[in-house]
C-alpha cells in the first residue's frame, strides 16, 4: 500500500443526481462498483447488508485500499478534487416522448391501455440535470497501485446519466505520491467525510460538519452519521 494520486480526464460534463443534494464522487465507491460488476453482482443486496463484503469493517472482498478509523472505519480514499480555474456549472434538460408506443406499434402488446395523453404508456418526462464541466478530476488514496490500475481499466464513465453519454472518461493516470492526501488535504482540511468521533480538529482552520455517509455505498441511509466534510470548493466550482 502506498500513497497514490489518480487523475481522471473527462470528455463530457459530470452530472449530479437528480432531485437530491449534490455530493462529491468518492474514489472507494468507484473501485467497489468495478469490483462488484466484475464479480457479476450488479444489484446491491439490501436484505443482506450485514454481510456486505465491500464494507471497510471486514473488507472480505479485498478492496485494494487502506482502512482507517477505530470504531467507525472508512477507506483511505479521498473525495474528488477539481481545478477551480477550469471548472464551470452547467445544466441540461432531458425529455421523454409520449408518442412512442404508436411509432413502433408497441401498444399492441399491452394487455389493457387507457389512451389518455400524459398517463400510463403515454407519459412524458422532463428532467432537469445539474452538473459541472470539468476537464479532469483528481483523487488521492493509499492503496495497491497494480490492482487499482487494473481495476481502472474498466472505468468508462463517472457520475450519473452515464448511459446517455455524460461523465465519459477519456483517460486515467495513476501516479505515486510523496505525501498521503487521502484523508486530509495539503491544507489540513478533510479530503473525505470522516466520522466526527474518529478525528479531532487540532488546527487553526475551521472544519465543517454534516450528516452524511462515511463508507460505501454512500447513498445508503444506514451509513450516514455526523462527519467532518471536505470544503465545498474542493469539488464544486464557486466562481
Amino acid at each position, binding site marked *: 500500500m502506498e500513497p497514490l494520486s489518480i487523475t481522471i480526464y*473527462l*470528455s*463530457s*460534463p459530470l452530472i449530479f443526481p437528480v432531485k437530491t443534494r449534490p455530493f462529491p464522487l468518492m474514489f472507494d465507491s468507484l473501485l467497489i462498483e*468495478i469490483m462488484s*460488476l*466484475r464479480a457479476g453482482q*450488479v*444489484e*446491491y*443486496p*439490501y*436484505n*443482506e447488508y450485514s454481510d456486505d463484503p465491500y464494507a471497510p469493517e471486514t473488507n472480505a472482498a479485498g478492496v485494494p485500499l487502506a482502512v482507517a478509523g477505530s470504531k467507525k472505519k472508512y477507506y483511505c480514499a479521498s473525495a474528488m478534487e477539481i*481545478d477551480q480555474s*477550469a471548472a*464551470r456549472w*452547467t*445544466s*441540461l*434538460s*432531458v*425529455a*421523454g*416522448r409520449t408518442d*412512442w*408506443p404508436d*411509432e*413502433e*406499434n*408497441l*401498444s*399492441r*402488446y*399491452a*394487455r*389493457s*391501455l387507457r389512451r389518455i395523453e400524459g398517463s*400510463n*404508456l403515454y*407519459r412524458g*418526462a*422532463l428532467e*432537469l440535470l445539474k452538473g459541472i*464541466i*470539468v*476537464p479532469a478530476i483528481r483523487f488521492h488514496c493509499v492503496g495497491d497501485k497494480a490492482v487499482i490500475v487494473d481495476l481502472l481499466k*474498466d472505468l*468508462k*464513465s463517472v457520475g450519473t446519466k*452515464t*448511459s*446517455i*453519454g*455524460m461523465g*465519459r472518461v*477519456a483517460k486515467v493516470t495513476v501516479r505515486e505520491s510523496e505525501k498521503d492526501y487521502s484523508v486530509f488535504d495539503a491544507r489540513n482540511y478533510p479530503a473525505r467525510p470522516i466520522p466526527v468521533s474518529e478525528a479531532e480538529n487540532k488546527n487553526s482552520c475551521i472544519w465543517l460538519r454534516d450528516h452524511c455517509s462515511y463508507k460505501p455505498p454512500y447513498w445508503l441511509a444506514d451509513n450516514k452519521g455526523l462527519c467532518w466534510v471536505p470544503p465545498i470548493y474542493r469539488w464544486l466550482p464557486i466562481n
Partner: protein
Amino acid sequence: MIYGHIITLEPVVHGSIPEFNAKRPKGAPLEFNRINIAYPLVNEKGKIKYEFARIPVISGNSVRGQGRRRFIAKTLEALETPERSLHPMLVHLLASGGSTSKGQTTPSNQYMYKTEMRKNMPFIDLLGGSVCGMFLKGMLKTGMVYPVVKETSWMLVGTPLEAMVAEREHPAAGDVDSRIFTIRMCKQSVGDELQIYSAGAIEEEIEEFKENGAEENNEAAKIKGAIFSAEALPAGVPLFNVCGVRYNGNNLLDSALNAFVETLLEIGTLGGYIAKGCGRVNAEYFYGDGTRFDPSKSKMYWEHLRAKKNEINEYMIKEFPKIIKASDEATEKEKERQEKSKQKQKEEKQQNGMRG
C-alpha cells in the same frame, strides 16, 4: 466499445429544451441542442490550458430512445410475444424505461425481483429502467453524437476513428455552428377538393372557432394551417458516437450491444422530423481494434431469445405482474401506517390540548 463515424446526408433537427422552464419566444425557431464542453489547448509555452466551447450535439438520450424502441420491438417479435398479453407497466418499462411513480412503495424483496428481472430479461439488463420504485441500472452506454471539430478531435485520440478523421482539417465548433440554418415547414389546411370527403368535421371546427369568439369572416377560422421552423445541422457534417457496455466479459451482454448497434444502423436516422425529409445519416461502426462492425456478432443474442422464448414470455406474462402486486400491497401497508401515525399524532395533540 464500438465507435461510430457518421456523416449527415440530410439536415438533422434535434431541438433543445429551454432550460429551467424558460419559454421560447413566439415565432422563434426550435433551437438546435448545444452543450458546453471543456477542451485542452496547448499554448505557446507548450503548457496545456483548458478552454470552454459550446458545440451542437445530438443527445445520447435521443439516440438511446430511438434505438431502444426499435430494439424492443424487434426483441418482442423475436420472442413471438402474444398481443395484448403484457402488463402496460412492463411495456412502458421495456420500451421507454418506465417511470418513477409518486407514492409507489418499493416491494420489500427488491433485490430478488431485480436479480430475477435481469436474469430472465437480458434486454432489461442491457437497457435498464425503473419500475415500482426499483431502479435497474442499464449496462448500455450510448454516447452523445458530437461533430468532428477542433474542440472535440482530442476525444478521438487512441480510437480507431483517429486515423480516419486525421486526413481532414477540422473546422472549429463556431464554423459548424454558423452553418446551422433554419428550415421552415408549413402545415396546410385541408384543400377544397378533399373537403367533400369529410362528414361535416370541418364545418364543426369552424363552428367551434365561432363559439370561442372568432369572427364569422375571419380567415384564420377557416385556414387551420401553421408555419413552424427549426434549426438544422446541414448535410455533409462529420459526426462521431461511442457505444459500449459497463463491463466486459459477459458474452450475452456483448452480443446484445452488437444487436443494439445493428438496430441503430437499421434506423439510419438521427434527431426528429424524419418523416419530413430530415435526419438521414450514413453511419459506419468500428470496434476498438479497428475492425469494422460485424452484425453476425449479434447472433448469440437473437438465438438466446429464440431458444428461451417460452421461459421469457412466461416470466413477462405471469411472473412480472406479481412484482406490481407486491408493490401495490407494500404501498397500501405504507398508507395504513402513515394514516395510523397521523391519527396517533392527532390524538396526542388533543390530549395535550386537554391537559393545557
